[in-house]
């Protein structure tokens, strides 16, 4: 029984991890076909000289960086506010936003932006993508921070308040230092979900704001290419590293 379970687990982990490992292995293949013709970095070179991918990458990095800073700041404050006092609207909308299918979030934002544009003369672009990313990543930040606050020793805060600290001082000098690693973890998580998003982004992006996932989608739609394997391997390695870092920080 035990042996069978272990064997099964090996197969299950292979199912979960082999597809990406195979993809990564073939990104180093000299041939563009499914035949191993020797180790080569040429597809990485090709990826770095592909203007569509590089523009997408720089857009994605910029969008993810700004969205991460904003959603982390807003999310950490929001989580603290929620921890101290319940707010039905805020918690309901945060949970609902996690539950809403991405495609629905995407089209609702598209319709909403178009509706506003009838009054204001602006168009879809970088700014709408950033706004959308802030909106959907706040919930992730709040979940991580709230989890940490709930395991925190609440008497610390009471002690600070009893000793005459103002609420904002207590937050800055007692809560924030305790939350430090959790804030870092939450921001890495926000960065990951922002950098990776395709569905919502594709609905609210304009001509100047094609992101890396959008470029990858466009190439994947035409069929696969070793260049895509190379850029995918880089992204998976990068995001995998961030996730591991985030997990480590969260457990501290």
């Amino acid at each position, binding site marked *: *029984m035990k042996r069978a*379970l272990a064997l099964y687990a090996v197969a299950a982990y292979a199912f979960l991890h082999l*597809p990406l490992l*195979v993809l990564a292995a073939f990104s180093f293949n000299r041939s563009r076909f499914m035949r191993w013709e020797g180790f080569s970095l040429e597809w990485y070179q090709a990826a770095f000289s592909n203007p569509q991918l590089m523009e997408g990458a720089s857009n994605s990095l910029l969008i993810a960086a700004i969205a991460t800073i904003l959603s982390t700041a807003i999310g950490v*404050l929001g989580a603290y506010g929620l921890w101290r006092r319940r707010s039905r*609207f805020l918690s309901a909308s945060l949970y609902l936003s996690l539950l809403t299918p991405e495609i*629905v979030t995407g*089209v609702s934002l598209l*319709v909403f932006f178009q509706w506003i544009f009838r009054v204001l003369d602006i168009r879809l672009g970088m700014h709408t993508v950033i706004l959308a990313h802030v909106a959907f990543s*706040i919930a992730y930040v709040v979940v991580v921070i709230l989890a940490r606050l709930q395991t925190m020793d609440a008497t610390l805060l009471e002690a600070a308040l009893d000793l005459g600290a103002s609420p904002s001082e207590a937050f800055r000098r007692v809560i924030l230092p305790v939350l430090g690693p959790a804030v870092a973890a939450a921001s890495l998580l926000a960065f990951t979900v922002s950098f990776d998003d395709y569905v919502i982004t594709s609905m609210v992006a304009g001509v100047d704001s094609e992101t890396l996932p959008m470029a990858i989608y466009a190439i994947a739609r035409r069929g696969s290419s070793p260049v895509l394997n190379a850029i995918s391997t880089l992204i998976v390695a990068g995001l995998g590293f961030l996730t591991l870092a985030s997990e480590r920080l969260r457990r501290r």
Partner: protein
Amino acid sequence: MSFERLCRWPAALVMAFLFAAPLGVIAAYSFLTRGAYGGVEHPWTLDNYARLLDPLYGSILLRSFWIAGVATALCLICGFPLAMFIARAGRRKNLYLALVILPFWTSFLIRIYAWMFLLRDTGLVNTILLATGWVREPLPLLYNDGAVILGLVYGYLPFMVLPLYAALERQDNLLLEAAADLGARPLDVFRRVTLPLVAPGIRAGTILVFIPCLGAYLTPDLLGGGRTVMVGNLIQNQFTTARDWPFGSAASLVLMAIGVGLLWSATRKEGADIL
């Protein structure tokens, strides 16, 4: 205003303007008429909801339920032994658990692309099958419902394994031993002791997998091959090529209502700890 309230303001503003208001706008649009050049027009109507019951669209809704249901069942069947393995792994538990979660955080899009890479006519699986002489022509592995289900199972298996693991972890092993000592066969122990004890985990996992599967867009879009496979594709289509915003809005709201309804009925039984 108190400091705590001030803290909540930015988040509440963002959620009000960039989540609740957009949903409100599509809720309103779902009762309007499609405009001549896209957009919307009066009068108010319930036609958009009625059209969802039209056989053409109703069948897409039914197929979404079918695909999501099969994917969820497969996740349960594949996830249960894995969760059991992790729960009994002793010191290495955390490592094994992390190995289940890790792929989930490494780019959903690329994980789907990896399957396209494997399953294409010229992909690795077909290449191996052709080279070993098992088949003469490449098997049509991609762009069908089977590929979509495979992609969904691959994508959402962690959502099943986590609650199952949590439930199995909590179960008291003495109960299993007691049942065995009292003469129950292993299968009976599983059916009459383990299953009832992990039922809440099964329910949680089923909900957590079924809801995102039902609303899936990217997986059916890429692995299903551009046909309108599921509701998610139908919605996307109404806002891009078909330009029927009111109908797309109605489909979006129905999809959301189903998800919320399922979660609500599940949490009513369990209390809120599913979240």
